[in-house]
């Protein structure tokens, strides 16, 4: 019995310690970002990696998400004779919810995992230690550029996702299923408010912080050897995805 209590206590302490370390990591990363954000060249490099190189997957995901929304929306709305509202349904679903969340999940899979693996390998091959022995802060060179790049790239990618998704819905709804093209865009313009757009952008900005935070954190504290890096990468993708969804719920309940 005492062994069980001891084990629970040990796990709880470990969990609290991990939470504290994660919190410290985020606060220190934001502090370094505000104080000395690092060379613009490093930030641009990361913008290319997180943003530009994610474009293809974002295009693809957005197009098919919009097309499925067009298809599902049409058959649901037709039951009520409201096919004209298809544009509104597609646009609001994408702008408020699916755009930010799916963009974040795609970037997590493509760039977040790579960030964790890159920093994890630098950790196990003592490259981060080497930087510290040169009296250089690894946060300035490794973490801050990724954090800034993710904060910029995610809202931009999300905006692209929304636009491509809306045209995906238009392709299926208007071109394939015969919804009136004027109604598709007119109803959308009437129903979508700037507040919806802002809330989507705000969400994707905060998801950018979550992706960079968890990916960098897991890599920075990766365990030993190839197995340690592989474990860190898996944990990073799972934790980021879960946190994105949890944070999305809280943010939505506040913004609604």
């Amino acid at each position: 019995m005492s062994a069980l209590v001891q084990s629970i206590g040990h796990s709880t302490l470990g969990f609290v310690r991990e939470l504290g370390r994660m919190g410290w990591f985020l606060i220190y990363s934001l502090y370094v970002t505000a104080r000395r954000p690092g060379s613009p060249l490093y930030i641009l490099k990361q913008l290319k990696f997180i943003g530009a190189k994610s474009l293809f997957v974002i295009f693809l995901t957005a197009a098919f998400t919009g097309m499925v929304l067009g298809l599902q929306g049409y058959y649901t709305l037709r039951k009520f004779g409201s096919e004209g509202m298809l544009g509104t349904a597609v646009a609001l679903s994408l702008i408020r919810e699916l755009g930010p969340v799916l963009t974040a999940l795609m970037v997590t899979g493509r760039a977040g995992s790579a960030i964790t693996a890159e920093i994890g390998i630098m950790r196990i091959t003592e490259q981060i230690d080497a930087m510290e022995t040169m009296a250089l802060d690894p946060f300035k060179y490794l973490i801050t550029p990724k954090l800034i790049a993710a904060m910029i790239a995610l809202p931009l990618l999300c905006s692209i996702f929304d636009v491509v998704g809306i045209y995906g819905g238009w392709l299926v709804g208007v071109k394939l299923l015969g919804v009136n093209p004027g109604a598709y865009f007119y109803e959308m313009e009437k129903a979508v408010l700037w507040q919806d757009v802002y809330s989507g952008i705000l969400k994707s900005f905060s998801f950018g912080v979550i992706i960079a935070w968890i990916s960098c954190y897991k890599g920075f504290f990766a365990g030993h050897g190839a197995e340690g890096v592989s474990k860190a990468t898996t944990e990073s993708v799972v934790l980021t995805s879960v946190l994105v969804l949890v944070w999305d719920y809280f943010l939505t309940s506040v913004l609604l």
Partner: protein
Amino acid sequence: MIKLSNIHKSFDSQTVLNGLNLDIPAGEITAIIGPSGEGKSVLIKHMIGLLRPDSGSVEVEGENILTVRRSQLNHIREKFGMLFQNAALFDSMNVFENVAFPLQEKTKLSRDEISTRVFSALENVGLKNVEKKFPDELSGGMKKRVALARALLLNPKIILFDEPTTGLDPIIKRAIHQLIKETHAKFGFTAVIVSHEIPEIFDIAQNVAMLYKGEILQYGPAEEIMNSTHPVVKQFISGSLDGPIQLV
């Protein structure tokens, strides 16, 4: 120069350093020897603050690096250069960028000045026409020499060498030892070398410390340690299988 007092360090339940005391004199080469897995790399990482002990103190030129603020620790670290066991070159940078990195970040030198100093540093370690190569295109010996060039570039007062010749062939090994000896004679830095190279290390180091079971078992001038009658030190230096050091 570097003073470690009563250092205790454990990883999970394994005690690695157990009340270790060591005083590294300025301007001399001190070698740390001892069986594999005894914590020599752990010890050297304590000297520059990469690892923090569970208890004890680490002083560099009279300053306790465990109690100073991060900015002050970085100031102290500017006195150091370190050569890692696996060279620890930045794998996304080529040789030139690796060596130039500390200069670009820590000085206000122009591009041309940086370039001149990088080429000169590489030449000093016997490397030519490798500037554009990436670390994974270099042999083990070349990587260590690039790392040595990077460590020497800012003329540090103290250089820590973590097994600088492990895994190298005898000729490269001798070349690196010679290089350490020559650069030390030229610049007069304080050097700490973790090494398994016996007896060669006794030709380079002025002082030798034997680490065993988390403590410094014997410490003194190289010649004294070389001729030690202590059974553990004697067995380790002779490489004998019989004696107090057990393989398992």
